[in-house]
């Protein structure tokens, strides 16, 4: 598979504060990457930097051979980035349908297509963003990223607040999308096991730097290493 994303020497932060330092990794087309790490180590910052929502201090980002870091945020969506922010950030004065329609780009995924995936959203089509339950907002955030028809999905804790059965379905769907449609995804999660099970690669961050890079299956198998990397004392 050809390489889709390459991150090199990336550092980023908020104002003066540097959060990410010299982060590097790469991802092939159709692959899923699990991004793990303790609270506050910069996972969200990394995702947001890829989406163009956080200021990048140094480094290069290459998406399918093109220099992603030179693009303005709104151009990155066109280049193939689909972003699910951690706090969901549903547009609150738009209806569910408008939330999708406002950002949709031509391609395989249409609003109707994602309604089939999340029937709950179809039922709530006319509700305003503020009138959704927490889980519904989460579904909408994922759906909204899909209708961008991206090549790379950035999912920041997409399972938070979802019912177990939906989690199961969503994980299956992500697997299907990446396997069958050649999409790539970067997923941040608090529950490493669930995510590693469907990932190809894993990157672990600690205090803004990459402390582990490797195969997801291997990491999943090595519980001791995982615990050490994530600082879980058991």
């Amino acid at each position: 598979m050809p390489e889709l994303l390459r991150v090199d020497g990336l550092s980023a932060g908020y104002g003066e504060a540097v959060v990410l330092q010299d982060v590097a990794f790469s991802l092939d087309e159709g692959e899923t990457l699990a991004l793990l790490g303790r609270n506050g180590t910069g996972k969200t910052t990394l995702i947001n930097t890829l989406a163009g929502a956080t200021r990048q201090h140094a480094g290069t980002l290459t998406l399918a051979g093109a220099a992603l870091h030179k693009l303005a945020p709104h151009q990155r969506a066109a280049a193939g980035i689909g972003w699910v922010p951690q706090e969901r950030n549903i547009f609150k004065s738009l209806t569910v349908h408008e939330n999708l329609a406002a950002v949709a780009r031509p391609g395989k995924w249409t609003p109707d297509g994602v309604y089939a995936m999340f029937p709950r959203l179809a039922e709530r089509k006319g509700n305003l963003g503020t009138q959704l339950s927490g889980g519904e907002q989460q579904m909408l955030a994922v759906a909204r990223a899909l209708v961008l028809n991206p090549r790379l999905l950035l999912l920041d804790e997409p399972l938070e607040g979802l019912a177990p059965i939906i989690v199961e379905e969503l994980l299956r769907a992500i697997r299907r999308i990446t396997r069958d449609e050649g999409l790539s995804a970067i997923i941040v999660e608090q529950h490493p096991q669930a995510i590693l099970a469907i990932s190809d690669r894993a990157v672990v961050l600690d205090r803004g730097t990459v402390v582990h890079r490797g195969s997801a299956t291997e990491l999943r198998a090595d519980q001791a290493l995982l615990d050490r990397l994530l600082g879980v004392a058991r």
Partner: protein
Amino acid sequence: MPDHVLTCERLVKRFGGITATDDVTLRLERGARHALIGPNGAGKTTLVNLLTGVLEPTSGRIALEGEDISKLAPHKRVHRGLVRTFQINQLFPSMTPLQTLALVIAQQRRQGARFWQPLGRDEEVVMRASQLLEQFRLAEVKDVPTEHLAYGKRRLLEIAIALACEPRVLLLDEPVAGVPAGEREDILQTVAALPADVSVLLIEHDMDLVFSFARRMTVLVNGAVLTEGTPDEIAADPRVREVYLGHGEEAHA
């Protein structure tokens, strides 16, 4: 006869065409550790909003300690010990955790109308606030305005506020969402360790936590109560598996 602290009877809430709460009858025993689960959009948050008076029910009745509180203003329900947390943080951005907790405690002790002495003059208020700060690992950020806190800390403050209200009945709406796995148990430990006569209703999608915490569970689907029972009964119920729990193992990691 069981001693019911909070009951709601035939509660209905409609938003336009949507029935978010559909004829719900729920009884919370004194000292209960009760979990409320159900698919997304089942109406769990709505139910909490109805119980605490944020929303007005379309019909139905709510009673606290046997007394009808359906028409009572939200803050008066708090005075009677009915306290909640919010699924999405509701904090006071410009105040520090210390100020926030001191305020909540002062208000809880009916000092909210005192205008002649500074907040913090009352030693007991300060003591209790410091205690909570320690307990929720907020002591080192006690003087940082809430708007500058990291998400995890804000989540902790959210729960600390509820406890500062000295609840008799505590309604927790996904209290540990966004809290790292390691700290989740700690928080629920704190809650579980509340005095035995405090009743707790927990809403949560993390089944490990729910099953370790709850002694009784209610399942809500499409606004209506599907079933109620002990954790074992619920876990074994095929209908619950069908609509909520699913079958896979990943979800329980």
